[in-house]
């Protein structure tokens, strides 16, 4: 698997930042950006993508 990377998109007015992790999943993915998220400001929303859910289900099923 490729190395995790963090994508950051700063809005045109500089008021909001969208942070996305690629090549990482599950808790590792959340841990990767947590300090950046809270360091930059106030988190207003977090969305888990299907990849995250798939990894969670695999862990639950023990597969």
């Amino acid at each position, binding site marked *: 698997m490729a190395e995790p990377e963090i994508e*950051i998109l*700063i809005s045109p007015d*500089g008021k909001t*930042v969208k942070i*996305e*992790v690629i090549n990482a999943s599950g808790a590792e993915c959340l841990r990767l950006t947590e300090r950046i998220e809270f360091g930059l*400001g106030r988190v*207003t929303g977090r969305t*888990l993508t299907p990849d995250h859910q798939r990894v969670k289900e695999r862990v639950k099923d023990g597969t």
Partner: protein
Amino acid sequence: MSHYCNVELELRDIDALVLALLDMGFVRTEIEVHSEAQPLYGFQGDLRPEKAHVIIRRQHVGDSSNDLGFVKDPVTGRLTAIISDFDQTHVIGRHGGTYGQAWVDSLSKAYAVRDSIKLGMRDGYGRVIKQESRADGSIYLRLGRG
């Protein structure tokens, strides 16, 4: 890819703010940083009621300008810009514009880039793989391990 999150930017880091001000065209010797807030002065050398922790004195801001500052809230740690109405609408800085909303927006973006890299570095993700300004005014940044 497994999650994304939206953050409302808050300026809290003085080091990142100083770097952002450098990106905006000021030089380091023009930027004062104080642990205790210091008074700001107006264009005639008059003492203004505001105090700030980060200050750019009026001679570096532009003709007939007032001091420009950033004050840190002792409770939240948030930095708030103090820019006079006159400087926001009339004073032309060396960037070629006034210190109005467009300047504040550009500063915020520069701050977000600098703070993101600093925070990424702290967790081992300080290598800038890509940074680009997009046509809509947004800035894209990709950080990798390193």
